[in-house]
């Protein structure tokens, strides 16, 4: 297991380097950080533009620029944005924002996916299975931005009307300025009120496809010989399904969920935008691609790639937890 993990980490580092090189090449070829200056009226002097060019290192050969960036990263320095703010400082904050938004949603989504998947498999072709299948496909088909807008319009509007006061919020993490004059329960309930809608939106949309994986994995397991053997030995049905069935059926879901979580840390781009959480996804789109800022894009790439790799490792470890045969190997 240890050598397996080490091998995986080394391979991941190589993948990270290769992908950062590719993205660097793409950004260097297409980004034009000076474009915004040329639209100024009157434009800055040529000397000024040359100075900016020099400062951003745009005059250096491509490979030299990449080398500077790479050696910087090894020292923990992701470089500066065009505006001169260290990228390293911003990535941490952005990651926390995204983390706060997705963590609860993931937990809810996984629990729901397992429960609904197992019920669907155990009661295959019963009304409950049809109902959950229908619901899952509807949720899978819904575009995120639309679902989120519906939640804001009807759920937030409805609940707030019902209580006659602000309970659910549609923008940001907390009512701005609230921490200046409130504390304790008022502050926490406000934060929860802000978290509810993004969590529902993310959890339902992720749960839908995950529940389908869980259902089909469970169906596979239910039809296998060892399940019949366990029943034949006289074990109660419930115990067979939980202990022998569910445990094995969790392995495929682990892979899917691990990949999904890793990707979500790169930013739930649309959910962030609709609910105005300034997380990783917005950082890539607005500060990186929007500003033609190569250091931001690469910093984002590296951090989100690390999360994908990390959660894949977690998945590998979880296989071992779920399946003793892997531990022995």
């Amino acid at each position, binding site marked *: 297991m240890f050598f397996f993990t080490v091998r995986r980490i080394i391979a991941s580092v190589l993948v990270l380097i290769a992908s950062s090189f590719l993205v660097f090449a793409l950004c260097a070829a297409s980004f034009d950080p000076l474009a915004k200056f040329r639209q100024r009226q009157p434009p800055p002097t040529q000397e000024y533009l040359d100075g900016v060019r020099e400062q951003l290192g745009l005059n250096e050969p491509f490979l030299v620029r990449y080398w500077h960036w790479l050696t910087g990263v090894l020292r923990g320095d992701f470089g500066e944005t065009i505006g001169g703010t260290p990228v390293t400082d911003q990535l941490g904050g952005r990651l926390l924002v995204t983390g706060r938004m997705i963590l609860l949603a993931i937990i809810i989504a996984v629990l729901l996916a397992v429960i609904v998947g197992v019920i669907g498999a155990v009661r295959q072709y019963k009304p409950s299975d049809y109902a959950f299948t229908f619901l899952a496909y509807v949720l899978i088909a819904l575009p995120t931005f639309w679902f989120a807008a519906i939640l804001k319009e009807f759920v937030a509007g409805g609940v707030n009307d019902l209580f006659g006061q602000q309970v659910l919020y*549609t923008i940001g993490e907390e009512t701005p300025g609230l921490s200046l004059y409130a504390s304790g329960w008022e502050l926490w309930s406000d*934060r929860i009120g802000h978290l509810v809608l993004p969590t529902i939106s993310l959890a339902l949309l992720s749960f839908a496809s995950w529940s389908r994986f869980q259902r089909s994995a469970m169906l596979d397991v239910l039809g296998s010989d060892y399940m019949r053997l366990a029943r034949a030995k006289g074990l109660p049905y419930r115990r067979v399904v939980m202990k022998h069935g569910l445990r094995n059926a969790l392995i495929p879901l682990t892979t899917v969920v691990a990949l999904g979580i890793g990707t979500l840390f790169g930013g739930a781009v649309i959910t962030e935008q609709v609910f105005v959480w300034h997380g990783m996804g917005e950082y890539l789109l607005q500060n990186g691609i929007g500003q033609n800022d190569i250091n931001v894009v690469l910093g984002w790439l590296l951090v989100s790639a690390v999360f994908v790799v990390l959660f894949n490792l977690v998945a590998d470890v979880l296989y071992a937890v779920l399946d003793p045969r892997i531990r022995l190997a």
Partner: protein
Amino acid sequence: MKLSKRGSALVATGIAGAMVLSACGGGSSSDGGGSGEGGSGQVVFGEPTAFPENIYPFISAGNSTATQTIIGRVLPSAFNVSPDFSVTWDENILASEPTLEDNGGQQVNTYEINPDAVWSDGTPITADDFAFTWKANRSADPADGGCEAVLSTNGYANIASVEGGGDDNKTVTVTYTEPYADWQSLFSTFLPAHLMDNEDPTALCETISNGFPIADGIIDDISAGPFQVKKENIDVGGQIVILTPNPEWWGEPAKLARLVIQNVGNDPTTTVQGLQNQELGVVYPQPQLDLVDQLDGLEPGVENKITFGLTFEHLDFNTTDPILSSLPVRQAFAMALDRQEIVDQTVGQFSSDAQVLDNRLYVNNQPEYQDNAPDEYKSQNTAQAKQLLEGDGWVLGADGIYAKGGQRLSIRIDTTANNPLRQTTIEVMIPQLKEAGIEATFNANPDIFADVDKPTSLVAGGFQAALFAWVSTPFVSSNQSIYYSPENGLGQNYSRIGTPEIDQLLSQMVSEPDPDKAADLANQVDQALWAQMATLPLYQKPTLIAYQSSISNVEDNASQTGPLWNAETWAVSS
């Protein structure tokens, strides 16, 4: 479902993790200012543009709309642009209207600072602050004691000296080496000398290059306006800046206890639902038709207003193009257009106040605006357009398009990609031009603002006609680089044509410190530009402000001053 011990442990770890992450949230500490500093109530302003990295306005990183929103009512300014685009002196900062004198060919301005004016740490505002602002922006050349990070030295570079005098150093005398028409645009935002000045130019340059990073706020939380920005009231993660009343402010105190500037992006649905759910008080989004409709649906709880701003759309003809190098072709092109129809189909949809723009240096609602368009361009004039083309040797072909020497009269109009308003503009033009025998095509050009290395960029000149925007201003000198002859360097003269007469008028205009005379010269420049017909103004772009009707005194200021120009008078009725 019964969870195994390991399973419950995993879930518990996850939930604990979520709680830890949430605990790191929020951002601003709970003991921040806000109470006991006068004013009552809170208004949230939804800022549509990107959160600024820096709020020092004189460097590139801080040169943004969002910076102006934050510092506009915090750092002092000698002159302000009013909602009607007139330029007025700030009666809180100054004691009397600044004077303009001609001292033997030298421009001399004298400012009397209000005796009560103080920075929020109690230090009086004096001539030293003017002198320091000049010093910090006078030069971008380190050999000259300047700083490379300075974004623009325009105007400040023309100043010979800034001297203090009078009681308590409150009289400022600014002497220019060369006269400068836009002297009123200088010292709009001036800086606290007592906190930033340094004898050593290298150390000063470091201060300037560093600016005011948003995480640190304005140096020493200093203010000389109705509001102040305290460092603890800046939440970088949440992209929220909270302005609170400045207790040392000597003018009419701010009525609000807190003015929250929250970056909400430019998504119309978010804006509308934020207003509907009472989370946003005032928003200033990019106008879009469906957005305006939705906002109308929120009346009377939410009010909205369309104003026409300083940004205007126009056509540039590339006079180095073989077809458009001919003056009659350019004139025919302009006459063939029904600009009223273009306005009706585009910005006219927002408001019936939309008008055709007949001036390149001023927009319709500026006080200096004159309709300089010759009569033949006032309405669609297909007959005269055809006449002009035929006089130039063009022959109408069987397909209804003119041709000359095997060359079809076909013109590609470039514009930026993904801009529906501009696309509609060109789509309305195409059939109008067709009537006059001119074939026009639409081309979304993603490289339009790229550098010379992209051949189809404006700078490289690989286009025929281009539709894009300029921003008009009460300060005329920014127009010089657009219309100055290319022999003086291309600047932003993408049509690549000029005349000695226009050059002469432009140089006179930029060195005419009397605003009325400068405006007169600017209108003369525009008249000459109509004769040259290398650019054609079309229409002003609208701006949109919407606010809860419980907030009083909100009024758009479509100039660079922005909608927070009178934020100290905003009040909330409960």
